[in-house]
Every structure is written in C-alpha cells, then in structure tokens.
C-alpha cells in the first residue's frame, strides 16, 4: 500500500489569535447541547422506558434529542441496563467508533453497581470503570420523566463544559484499559488507535500511556483485511482479499 502524507494540524500548532474565540466556544457548546443524536444500546430492561420518552407523550425531540442509527453519527451513547461481560466488549467497540465529543449515559441501577444482578458472574458491575460515564440515571427502571430530567442535566453540563468524559478517556486511557484487560484478558484489543487519537486531540497526558498500554502493544495483532466469500454456480470465489 502506498503511503500518503496528509498534513494534520493539531490544536497545539494552531495559535488562538481570534479575540472572539471564547464567544465562539460558548456558541458551539450551546449548539452541541441543543442537537444531540442518541445511540441507545438497549442492553437491558431500561430500554422499555425510552419509547414513551421519545414519542409524543414526553417528546424528547423538543429538546433536540433524536435517536440515531449508527455510532459514527451519534453524540450520546445510552446504556440502558445491565451490561454482561460479552456485551461490554461490544459497548466499548461502539464507544470507540463514535466521533468526539461523545457522552455516555448509564441508565438503571445495574450500570451503577450491578443492580439486581450484583452476584451474577456474567455481568460487569460498574460501567464507569470501563467507559467514562458522564451521567447516571438511577432507578429500576427510571420513569421517562427521570430520563428527561437526566437529559436536561446533561445539556446543562455540556453548556457549562463539565461533561468532559470523552477527554477523560483519552487522558486516563491506561486506567480504563487496565480495567478492561482485567476482565477480558491480556490479549484484549480494539481496532481504534486511542493513543493516536489522544495525541491528535492534544489530550495525551501522563495517564494516557502506562503499563497496560505497553501490554496492549505487546499483544497487539495487526488487523487483517476482511475477506468475503460468496458462491457462484458451485465455485467458491474470494472477494476483497487485498488492496494492493
């Protein structure tokens, strides 16, 4: 594959000379808080409270919150209910695919401390050990009013700049990765290059790299291009095996 040099301008290289920058920041934050696309990862029973919150009775859309179908277009990742260890892997993959800034909301008691599945071998207990949770909505299950109240709270926090969980994920990636490795084993890896992203956003701190990221680099296997097989008239043909 041919390497192409694309110049990347990091925020460190850019000097902020515009005197109105802070005003724009305020405006950007206001706009962000007013149009949130929500990816609801319905892991547990809490998802049943979302249809009334989204449809005409409580009408989340008047606050600018809409469901979205893909993680790459979403701003909020909504975890509704218990996360089993298997699901947690998929949740982390989904989270790392989302574009920054991104926010995580944990709904129901199960995401806080395991909830009624506290002694189950199959569920992860505290979601915020593996992902930066911006807001918890406790309850078993929370009513749509509580969901809306939580959403309003998140909007306030985005406007004031307090909802910075995604920055925390880059700053303390080593800690999050360590917890993930504790659960999934040492050979756990995701396709996303979080350390690279952290330096791109100029958020790499002392906690970004550490012993766990070194372990990740040791165990990392290069991703292989996806192979698709399909059958035409008896002969097996291969498609998309390389890009050379």
């Amino acid at each position: 594959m041919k390497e192409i040099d694309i110049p990347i301008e990091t925020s460190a290289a850019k000097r902020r000379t515009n005197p109105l920058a802070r005003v724009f920041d305020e405006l950007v934050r206001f706009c962000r808080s007013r149009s949130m696309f929500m990816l609801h990862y319905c892991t547990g029973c809490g998802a049943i409270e979302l249809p009334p919150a989204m449809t005409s009775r409580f009408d989340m859309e008047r606050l600018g919150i809409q469901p979205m179908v893909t993680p790459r277009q979403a701003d909020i990742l909504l975890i509704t209910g218990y996360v089993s260890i298997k699901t947690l892997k998929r949740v982390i993959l989904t989270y790392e695919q989302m574009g920054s800034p991104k926010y995580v909301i944990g709904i129901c008691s199960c995401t806080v401390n395991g909830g009624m599945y506290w002694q189950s071998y199959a569920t992860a207990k505290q979601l915020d050990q593996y992902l930066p949770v911006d807001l918890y909505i406790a309850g078993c299950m929370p009513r749509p009013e509580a969901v809306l109240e939580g959403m309003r709270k998140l909007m306030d926090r985005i406007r004031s700049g307090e909802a910075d969980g995604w920055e925390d994920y880059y700053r303390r990636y080593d800690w999050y990765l360590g917890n993930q490795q504790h659960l999934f084993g040492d050979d756990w890896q995701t396709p996303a290059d979080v350390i690279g992203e952290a330096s791109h956003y100029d958020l790499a701190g002392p906690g970004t790299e550490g012993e766990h990221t070194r372990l990740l680099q040791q165990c990392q296997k290069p991703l292989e291009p996806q192979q698709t097989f399909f059958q035409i008239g008896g002969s097996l043909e291969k498609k998309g095996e390389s890009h050379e």
Partner: protein
Amino acid sequence: MSKTVTPWLDNLLQEIEGVEIRRKDSRRVRIDIAADSLPTLLELLRGRAGYVHLSAITCVDWIDESQFELVYQLWSYESQSLVSAHIRIAREPGVYVSVFDLYQPAAFFERDIHEMFGVYFEGSPDMSKFILTEWNGPPPMRKEFDAEAWVNETFEWKEYQPDWLKEITEQGGGIVKTPEEARQKKP
C-alpha cells in the same frame, strides 16, 4: 384427540424394567428410569407412542448425593401430553451418551449443559462453547462454583454513601430507604 395419556402408553412402559411411573396429571407423566435404559425408553416413546418433540433437556446438580439429574421433556402432539424422563448419573466423571441420533435438537441442549455443568455427552456433534464464549472459569451452574465469591474477587463496589450524595440528601433527595432498613423484619 384424546386429552388423557392413552392406556397403551402404560402397556408400552411395562416392557421396560426398572421404571417408576408417577402420573402427575391427566396430561403429565413422570418416569424415573435407570440411566442405561433411557435411550431404549426414548426410542420406544418416539417410535411407538408419538412423542416426537424433545422440548428440553434439563440438568440438576445434586451435590450432596454426588449426582447429576438429567430430565428429558418429551411432548406428543397426538395425545397432547408431556412425559418427563428423569435419570441420575454420577457427578464424577459426569459422562453420558448423546440422544442426538433420536432427537436432533438435543445437540443444542447437550452443548448448553456441557457448558453450564461440565457434563460430557458422548456422540454429540459439537461440544464447543455455546453462549459463554468468553468465559474461562469453571462451569458456572455447578453448585460448588461460588458466584458471589467470584464476583467479590473480580469486581469492586461503588461506595454506597459518597460525599456528593450527602449534598443531594440535604436538598431533600437521595436514598429514601437504606438496604439495612429494608432488610429489617417487621415485628
């Protein structure tokens, strides 16, 4: 269509020795049978009595008696009745024969039991991991597996009354009833 278990089922069951039959209901029969005779029983029930549907295979761990109980639930569409055949096998080594050649859905049930209890079924087509593909511990449904101890060893718990909650409590929110209060028995 008759709603009762037909008398010819009783005649049929008399052909096998060592069988204890208990009629729980007009449409339910419980059969306790020696483990060696179970394939014969299933073959008779399937071939001559119309019990063509294997609803489930259930496993019970009787750790004090050092035995596993396997329950085969069979349903007949003709007589609309359920037969549950119970067998006991030794907990160690926990090996039994597969009934896949009689009932093909058994492959899934046996795979599941193998994963959850560690019982090995000889002749079952696939004994690989089924649901717990990312689980490396012991079979979790065995009685000697202490899930609570495993959880306490693996996970940390969130503090129940953190400082930020005290602020909310002062404002009138917070925890209404603590678990200690909820567990207290009423006099």
